[in-house]
């Protein structure tokens, strides 16, 4: 090991903490890591062992403060940590080995980066002396994760570990949350360094701005008070900011009377039964939400980022509105849409500042504006045709909502049509109940996320709304739920297609269904049984309610294979390259092709 570290058994040494000599013991890097995690209040570590993390796994052996959840694939570990984080508001912790362990986890890390989910990811690395030698299970984890983590570290001395872990948690959970990765070579896990129970000494270099400037707040209040057609456009930032932001958003809405729409990531911040709720906006948002955005004179964007799925064609996006953008990340401002008033700060703090300045002001009379919104509502953009022969997937979600809403369930999803139908037809009333991969759009997210959420919320009903294609992407995690006796439910809308791919091929490639058919599907009921789950098949509309009820009533994990209409499409829809006003609703003619400019858009 050379002179760099002393690799001795438990050895008490004197060392200096702020000019005071104190006695402390030496501990291995692995031990310091586990102590540091326990100090952060970590309850669960989602991981998978391997050669380069064996010292850490040994340190976890018999550890009572931290429970290790053994997943079946490292991508599952990262998504489960995301589900835990998103549903509890606490950071998720992942532990995987070097090389393939780290690269397998990377999808979940990238997912957390785009959706601003706080994760601390510990990866093993080959011993320091072998780094760069193409050693067994070596990958440049720090290099690979550079642009999909908020920050990352390669720790080369166990004496740095306590401070690194402390800073990693601060970075992951404050400012705009995100994943932070700590790569620890195996020798650093084994080598000894001084350990003390005192908080680690480190520089405070990360201090994101959380308060809005007072002149910005006053200007915002004036703009809101003067608006005749305002709209609150809220996003995942409100959820990330914590329950206080949700409460303050509702208060601001009450005082101003402004209608509210939300991005996919922000669902739950505003209750779906409020008369001023417009539903989700964007590509598969409601007609009223998109028309109101387009026709508004003021958009107050709270913790959202004008994503391309929200704006549609940029040059036609809300052409006559002024825009206020509240965001904790300066780089979100003016990234795609130029705004009139940026306010950099934490959603809760800025909303509180706005409410303070608002005081007892009277809102404008918005009757005219709301009258116009009502005419858009009358289009009933979420309606869908009844079908006597097959279960409409939208109906299946509606029934799932009706039969579970009293239990205040947590819903996770995979990615595709079923995700959009769940966003449209399941309704949310509080934050942290809706777990979905919005930014990265990761198929295979929902099942592990549901597992993480169930661990963090043992008494909640947790349902993964899935598609037949997506669910197969992390199907191995069925075993994880079995092992830890987690009663998660999977509700598969089985249409035997990668439905969203098929829908786009129908719209833009003259129905040339290249590789979008789900051939050779497993028998999901038998698969459930093989893993010790209960399997339920719903084949007819008459079985729908009973099947859902049987799923709810069963105390353990259940897969429901809900066979739905094979060709139903997800509407309303703003086609690629179109404006908010050019929505396609059910019944419009949609088959055809598109010009290259539209095809080239994501």
């Amino acid at each position, binding site marked *: 090991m050379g002179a760099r570290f002393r690799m001795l058994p438990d050895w008490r040494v004197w060392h200096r903490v702020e000019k005071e000599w104190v006695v402390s013991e030496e501990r291995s890097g692995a031990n310091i890591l586990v102590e540091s995690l326990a100090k952060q209040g970590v309850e669960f570590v989602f991981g998978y062992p391997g050669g380069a993390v064996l010292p850490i796994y040994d340190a976890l052996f018999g550890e009572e403060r931290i429970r290790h959840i053994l997943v079946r694939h490292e991508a599952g570990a990262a998504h489960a940590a995301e589900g835990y984080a998103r549903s509890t508001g606490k950071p998720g912790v992942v532990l995987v080995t070097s090389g393939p362990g780290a690269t397998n986890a990377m999808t979940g890390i990238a997912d957390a980066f785009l959706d601003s989910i706080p994760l601390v990811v510990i990866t093993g690395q080959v011993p320091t002396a072998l780094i760069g030698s193409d050693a067994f299970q070596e990958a440049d984890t720090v290099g690979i994760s550079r*642009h999909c983590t908020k920050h990352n570290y390669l720790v080369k001395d166990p004496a740095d570990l306590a401070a690194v872990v402390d800073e990693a948690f601060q970075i992951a959970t404050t400012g705009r949350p995100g994943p932070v990765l700590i790569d620890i070579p195996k020798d650093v896990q084994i080598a000894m360094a001084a350990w003390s129970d005192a908080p680690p000494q480190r520089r405070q*270099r990360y201090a994101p701005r959380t308060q809005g400037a007072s002149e910005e707040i006053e200007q915002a209040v004036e703009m809101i008070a003067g608006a005749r057609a305002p709209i609150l456009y809220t996003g995942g930032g409100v959820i990330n900011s914590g329950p206080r932001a949700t409460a303050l958003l509702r208060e601001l809405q009450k005082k101003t009377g402004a209608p509210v729409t939300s991005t996919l990531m922000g669902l739950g911040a505003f209750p779906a039964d409020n008369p001023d709720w417009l539903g989700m906006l964007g590509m598969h948002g409601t007609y009223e939400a998109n028309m109101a955005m387009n026709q508004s004179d003021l958009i107050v964007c709270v913790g959202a980022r004008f994503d391309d799925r929200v704006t549609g064609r940029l040059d036609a996006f809300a052409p006559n509105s002024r825009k206020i953008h509240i965001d904790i990340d300066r780089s979100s*401002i003016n*990234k795609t849409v*130029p705004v009139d008033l940026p306010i950099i700060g934490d959603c809760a703090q800025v909303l509180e500042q706005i409410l303070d300045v608002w005081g007892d002001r009277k809102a404008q009379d918005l009757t005219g504006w709301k009258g116009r919104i009502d005419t858009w509502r009358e289009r009933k953009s979420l309606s869908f045709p009844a079908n006597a022969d097959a279960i409409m997937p939208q109906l299946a979600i509606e029934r799932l909502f009706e039969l579970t809403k009293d239990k205040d369930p947590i819903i996770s999803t995979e990615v595709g049509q079923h995700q959009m139908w769940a966003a449209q037809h399941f309704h949310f009333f509080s934050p942290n109940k809706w777990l979905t991969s919005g930014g990265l759009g990761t198929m295979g997210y929902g099942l592990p996320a549901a597992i993480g959420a169930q661990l963090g919320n043992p008494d909640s009903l947790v349902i993964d709304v899935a598609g037949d294609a997506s669910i197969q992407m992390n199907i191995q995690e069925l075993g994880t739920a079995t092992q830890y006796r987690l009663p998660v439910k999977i509700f598969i809308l089985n249409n035997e297609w990668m439905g969203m791919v098929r829908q786009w091929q129908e719209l833009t490639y003259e129905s040339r269904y290249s590789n979008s058919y789900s051939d050779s599907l497993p028998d999901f009921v038998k698969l459930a049984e093989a893993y010790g789950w209960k399997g339920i098949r719903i084949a007819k509309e008459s079985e729908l309610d009973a099947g859902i009820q049987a799923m709810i009533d069963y105390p353990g994990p259940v897969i429901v294979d809900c066979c739905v209409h094979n060709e139903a499409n997800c509407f309303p829809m703003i086609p690629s390259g179109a404006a908010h006003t050019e929505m396609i609703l059910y019944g419009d003619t949609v088959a055809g092709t598109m010009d290259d400019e539209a095809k080239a858009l994501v």
Partner: protein
Amino acid sequence: MMHIKHEAEERHVLTVTVDNEAGILAKIAGLFTARGYNIDSLTVADITENHAVSRITIVTHGPPSQIDQIHAQLERLVPVHKVVDLTESGPFVQRELALIKVAGMGEKRVEALRIADVFRAKPVDTSTSSFIFELTGAPDKIDTFVAIMRELGLVEVGRTGVVGMIRGAEEA
């Protein structure tokens, strides 16, 4: 038919003060590639006695909205303390050092030495048939000198890239 469109671009000089930690240069250079930004030149050296802080000068070009994003994205990196867009913040000095090797005999050799004198370029190496000139100045001065030397037997050019600083008493 679709064709790729190009927007009007501006040249900006940015200085970035960073923690001098392993991988920070890769983080910054990688940020530019990952988000499709341009690097015209990049210089880096530590500037504190204890080697804790480095100053990076980046010359980039792009549409104004992209320059603003570059600024914001750089600030987002945890080890970055400060980003200053010199081009935005007013008059600033920019200097670059170049080594220029010229080979030739007779009249051309004399002319090269004479022009080097006009540009205040210093010969730092000489043989009977060549010079290496050291030249410091703004990038366009070096461009001009190199262009002239091309006619007089230019062999090789090495440039450091720009280092810049705001004029006046204030720290940027």
